[in-house]
C-alpha cells in the first residue's frame, strides 16, 4: 500500500510537475501520476528526422519563472540562454521589422514609420519597467481570484498607458492600438503576439487592452537541448528529493468521503487493475476542469463550483500545426534588407493593412479564418543546431477558425490554402518539403484530454477564464486542489503548479522554506546583468 502526503494527478509541465517538485522539496512525500510514458507531453521535443528537432510548443518562457532559482533547474542539468534576436514580423507588402532585446534597435525601426509612435512605445515600456516584477507576481505567481491584486494590476497598467482604469476596462485591443499609434504599420508590427491569443481576446473590452499590454511583460529564452529539457529538469528535481513518478497509470476517480478527498483510485495500464492510493494531506488535480468534474463522480458539490467546472469553456479559436522539413532554407522577401530577419527564431506573417487586421479579429470567431495574417513560423534551425543534417525545419502554426469536429475533414483544404497563401508571399519551398506533418486540435485533444477542444491557447487568460474567473486552486472539497492549468504551451513560466503548491503550504500552515523565495524575473535579471558585465569586460 503506497501512501503519500500529497498525490498529484497529471504530470503536465506547468501544473503537475512544478507543484510536485516544490512540495517534495519542501518535505512532503509526493506521488505524481502520469498516464503516459513521458511527463510534460505538450512540451515534448522530437526529431522527425534524426537530428532535425522540433518542439511541440516552440516558445519557452521559463526564464521569468522563480522556479529557475527556487528549484535550481540549472543544477539539474537545464540550460537556458537568452536569444540575441527575438522575433520578426512581415506583411504581404514586403514591410518588416525585427525585434531585439535592445529597445533602441526596435525603436529605430518604428521611427521610420512614425517618430511619435516610437516615442509612445518607449514611454509605455519605461512606465512598465519599475513594476515588471510586481506585475509578474500578480498576474502569474499569485493565487487567484483576488480582487485587490487584480485592481492593483489594473492601476499599474492604466498608469503605464496614461489612462484611467475606467477608460482601460472599456477599451479593447483594437481601440487601444488605434489610440496609441498613428501609423498603421506600427500597429501591425506591434500586434502579433497578443493577436495570436497568448493572453486574451483582443476584441473584448478591457481584456483586449490588457492582453496587448501584458504581452510586453514576457521574456523568452532558448534551451539548446530542446524545450523538453525543462520537463526533464523538473522531473529530476522532484526525484532527487525523493518523489515517486507513477508512469503508464491513469487516475480513475478521486476518493471523496464526507466532502474530504482521501486519495485517488488509479488504473495501471499493464494489467488494467485499479487500486487506491491514499493522500494524507492533499490531492492536486492537474486534469483540467472537465476531467476534474468527471473524477469527482457523484460527489455533491456546491452549486457555484459545479457550475464553474461545467461551464468552463476554452477559447473557441483553435490552431493547427504543421511541421515541414525542407531541403533548403526558406527565402524571405524581407531578408536582404536586414539579414537578421532570416535568423529570427520566429517570424509572424501579418496583415497587409490595419483594416485587414481588424476585420480578421472581428471575423475570426464567426467565420472560417483565413490564413492571411495569422501565421506564426518557427525556424527550428535558428534555435537548434541542425547543421549536420543539411535539412531545414519549419514549424507553422495558424488559426483554423472556430473549433468543430469537421476540422478533420478540412485537413487538406486547410493545408492547400495555407500553402498557397504562404508561397505566393514568400518563396518558401514548401512544395518541395521532404516531410510534412499536420496536427489538428483533435490530435491535441487526443494527446491530452485535459485540453478541452484541444485548444493550445486555453487557460487562465482567455475569454471566460479571464483573471477573476479562473478556477480556484483550492476547491470546496477538503484536501482537493487544482493546479489550474489546462494547456501548458504558453505556460512555460510554471506558474500554476507554483501557485497550487503555495496554496497548500498556506492551508497546512507551513512556512515556506528559505529556498522558496525568489522573485519572478529574478533569474532573467541576473542573466542580463551577467551578460552586460561580460560584454563590458
Amino acid at each position, binding site marked *: 500500500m503506497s501512501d503519500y502526503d500529497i498525490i498529484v494527478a497529471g504530470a503536465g509541465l506547468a501544473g503537475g510537475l512544478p507543484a510536485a517538485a516544490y512540495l517534495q522539496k519542501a518535505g512532503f512525500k509526493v506521488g505524481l501520476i502520469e498516464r503516459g510514458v*513521458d511527463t510534460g507531453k505538450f512540451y515534448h521535443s522530437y526529431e522527425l528526422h534524426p537530428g532535425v528537432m522540433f518542439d511541440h510548443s516552440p516558445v519557452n518562457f521559463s526564464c521569468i519563472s522563480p522556479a529557475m532559482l527556487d528549484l535550481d533547474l540549472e543544477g*539539474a542539468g537545464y540550460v537556458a540562454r537568452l536569444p540575441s534576436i527575438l522575433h520578426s514580423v512581415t506583411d504581404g507588402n514586403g514591410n518588416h521589422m525585427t525585434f531585439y532585446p535592445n529597445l533602441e534597435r526596435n525603436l529605430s525601426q518604428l521611427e521610420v514609420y512614425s517618430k511619435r509612435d516610437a516615442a509612445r512605445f518607449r514611454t509605455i515600456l519605461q512606465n512598465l519597467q519599475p513594476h515588471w516584477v510586481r506585475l509578474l507576481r500578480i498576474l502569474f505567481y499569485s493565487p487567484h481570484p483576488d480582487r485587490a491584486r487584480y485592481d492593483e494590476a489594473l492601476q499599474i497598467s492604466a498608469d503605464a498607458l496614461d489612462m484611467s482604469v475606467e477608460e482601460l476596462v472599456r477599451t479593447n485591443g483594437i481601440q487601444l492600438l488605434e489610440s496609441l499609434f498613428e501609423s498603421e504599420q506600427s500597429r501591425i508590427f506591434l500586434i502579433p503576439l497578443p493577436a495570436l491569443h497568448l493572453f486574451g481576446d483582443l476584441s473584448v473590452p478591457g481584456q483586449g487592452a490588457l492582453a496587448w499590454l501584458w504581452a510586453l511583460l514576457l521574456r523568452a529564452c532558448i534551451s539548446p537541448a530542446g524545450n523538453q529539457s525543462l520537463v526533464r529538469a523538473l522531473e529530476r528535481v522532484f526525484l532527487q528529493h525523493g518523489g515517486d513518478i507513477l508512469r503508464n497509470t491513469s487516475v480513475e476517480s478521486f476518493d471523496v468521503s464526507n466532502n474530504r478527498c482521501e486519495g485517488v483510485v488509479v488504473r495501471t495500464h499493464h494489467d488494467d487493475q485499479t487500486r487506491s492510493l491514499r493522500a494524507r494531506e492533499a490531492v492536486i488535480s492537474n486534469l483540467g476542469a472537465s476531467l476534474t468534474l468527471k473524477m469527482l463522480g457523484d460527489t455533491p458539490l456546491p452549486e457555484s463550483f459545479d457550475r464553474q467546472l461545467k461551464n468552463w469553456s476554452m477559447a473557441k479559436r483553435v490552431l493547427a500545426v504543421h511541421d515541414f522539413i525542407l531541403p533548403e532554407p526558406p527565402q524571405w522577401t524581407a531578408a536582404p534588407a536586414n539579414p537578421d530577419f532570416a535568423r529570427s527564431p520566429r517570424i509572424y506573417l501579418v496583415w497587409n493593412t490595419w483594416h485587414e487586421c481588424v476585420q480578421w479579429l472581428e471575423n475570426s470567431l464567426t467565420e472560417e479564418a483565413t490564413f492571411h495574417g495569422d501565421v506564426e513560423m518557427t525556424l527550428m534551425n535558428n534555435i537548434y543546431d541542425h547543421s549536420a543534417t543539411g535539412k531545414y525545419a519549419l514549424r507553422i502554426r495558424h488559426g483554423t477558425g472556430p473549433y468543430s469536429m469537421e476540422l478533420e475533414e478540412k485537413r487538406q483544404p486547410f493545408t492547400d490554402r495555407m500553402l498557397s497563401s504562404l508561397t505566393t508571399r514568400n518563396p518558401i519551398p514548401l512544395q518541395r518539403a521532404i516531410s510534412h506533418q499536420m496536427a489538428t486540435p483533435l490530435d491535441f485533444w487526443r494527446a491530452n484530454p485535459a485540453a478541452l477542444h484541444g485548444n493550445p491557447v486555453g487557460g487562465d487568460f482567455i475569454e471566460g477564464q479571464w483573471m477573476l474567473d479562473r478556477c480556484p486552486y483550492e476547491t470546496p472539497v477538503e484536501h482537493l486542489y487544482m493546479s489550474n492549468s489546462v494547456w501548458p504551451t504558453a505556460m512555460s513560466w510554471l506558474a500554476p503548479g507554483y501557485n497550487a503548491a503555495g496554496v497548500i503550504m498556506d492551508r497546512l500552515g507551513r512556512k515556506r522554506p528559505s529556498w522558496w523565495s525568489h522573485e519572478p524575473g529574478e533569474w532573467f535579471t541576473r542573466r542580463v546583468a551577467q551578460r552586460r558585465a561580460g560584454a563590458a569586460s
Partner: protein
Amino acid sequence: MNRSFDVLILGADLNGLNLATSLAERGKRVALLDTALKLGGPFRTESFLTSHRYELGAGWILGEHHPEPAATLFENGTVHSMRPEIPLAYLFDDRPPLCLYRDPDRTFEQLASRDSRGLLALMTEGESLFESTVIRLANPEAAEGYRRSPPGTSTSPLFDMTVREALDHFGLPDPALRCVLTYLPLALGHDIRSTGSAAALAALVYGMSRMSLISGGAGLLVNGLTDRISRQGGLICEAAKVQTVNRDGNRITSLELADGRSFSAPLIVSGDDSLTPTGQRDEPAAAVPDESLGILRMYLDFLHDPGGFALPSDQARAVNRAYLVGFGFENEHEIHEHLAAMRGSQPQRIAGHLINNHFQEAAEPVGALSSLNEPLWCASCHSTDPETLRQRATDIAARHGRTIPSPQATATDHTGVRIRPRPVSAMWQSVLPFTTRAVDPEGFRRSYEQATVREICRRLAKVEPDDLRFRLTWLPAETGESLMDGDLTRILHGDLPRHQQNTTGNLLLDRTSRSARYLSLQTAPGLIAAVDQRIA
C-alpha cells in the same frame, strides 16, 4: 563552470543507463551524457505530434531473467514485460499465413512432420547458442565473460553456413517455412548472405520464443532507470555535444560541451572511439563485408483503425495478435532476387514487416499504431582509414555506374561529435542510388513511400492510402542503420565485448557490439564489472 564527478558516462543507451544506475545507487557521483535528445539508444518510445506511441528501434528484449540493476524494475513493478503469443506471422498472397508461435508445438501444427523435425533441430541448435551466449553475457564473474573464445573452438556447423545452406542442411522443404525463415533474420537486421548467418537464424528462431516486450513501451524501461539515477542525484544531460576534449597526455582532463558546460572525472566511460588519444580504436575491428543493406524505417498512423488484416476471420484472429507481420515475398528465391535487384536504381518490390499494435494490451486508446521496417539497399564499409573508405566507396559506386561527389573533408554525423570525421555515414550519402545527382532524391523518396503505403493498405482490411494522417520515414543514411554483417554470428561464436582501457589514461571504452546491445540488459553487468575493477 566545470563540474567534476566520480565517473562520467558518455552514451545513455541501456548499457550507459544501467552503469549509471548501478554506480549512483552505490554512492558514486555520476554524470550521464548523450548527444541525442532522447535517452535509451535503440530503445525509445516516442509520440511526436499525435497521441499514438511508436517504438523507435528495438521494442523488445530477450530472455526473462534480467540482471541488476534493471531486474529491480521488473521486480518492483515499475516495468512489466509481455510475451507475445505469436512473435511473427507471415502473410502470403496465395497461401494461408504461417505463424511462428512462442509455443513451438503450435508452430508445428501448421507444418508437415518432416518440416517440424527440421525446425525443431534448428531451434535446438539455436537454443544452445542463445543460452550459452546470454549466460556468458550476463555472468560478470566470467569477466572471463569478456574474453574472446579461441577461434575454432565452437563446434556448431552453422558458423560455416549461410541461411540458405542451413535450410537445406536441416531438410526443410516447405516453401512457406523457407520463406519465413529467410525473412526473419533479414527483418531483424541480419545479412542472410553472409557465412555464419545460419547461426544467427538458429539463435533468432529460438530467441523469438524468449522475446518479451515492455508493456506500454520500452521508454518505460528507460525512464525507470533515469528516474533512479535522478533519485540518487546523478546528473543526466541530453543533447550534450562534446565540442572540445582537453587532454594531459593520454588523460582526458575535461570535456567541454557546445552549450558551454564543462565536465571532468577520474574515469570516463564511452563507446565513442573518437575520444581515444589517436581518435581510433586501439585495435582494428574484425573484417566485415564492405556492402550491406540499410534499414528504412517508416512510422504510420492512420486516421481510422486499420481494423486488422484482410484475411478470413479465423486467420485474422491469429495474425492480428502477432508482434511482427511480414509480407511481400512469396518464397525465399524472391527474397534473394530482391536483394540482388535492389542494387539497381530502385527497389522492385515493397516488402517489410509491420510491428503490430502491441500497446493495445497496455489499455491505452491508441487505435492505429503501426510501423514498417524496410531493408533497403545501400552500401557501407568498415574501416578507420578515410582513404580506404573513399577508395571502396568509389569502387562500389563505379560498379553501379555512379560517381562520388568530391570528398567532404568536414563530414560529421548527426550525433554531433565532430572530433573526427565519420566517413561511413557520409559514404552512404555518396553511394545511395537516390542521393546521387542523377536521381531526384526527394522524388524517389516520395514514390517509394507511396508505393509502400499502398502495399500496406492493400494488406489491411479497412484503410485507404488517403486515410494516412501521419507518416514518418527515416532513410538509412539518416539513422546510420545497416544490416549487421555477421555481428550476431561473431557474438554467438564467443566474440564477446571486451571493454578496453587505455591504461595510462582515464578512458574506458564500452566495446559492446550492436547485436549485443540488442541482447540489451544482458550486456550491462560486464560493463559494470569492468568499471568496478577499474575503480577498485
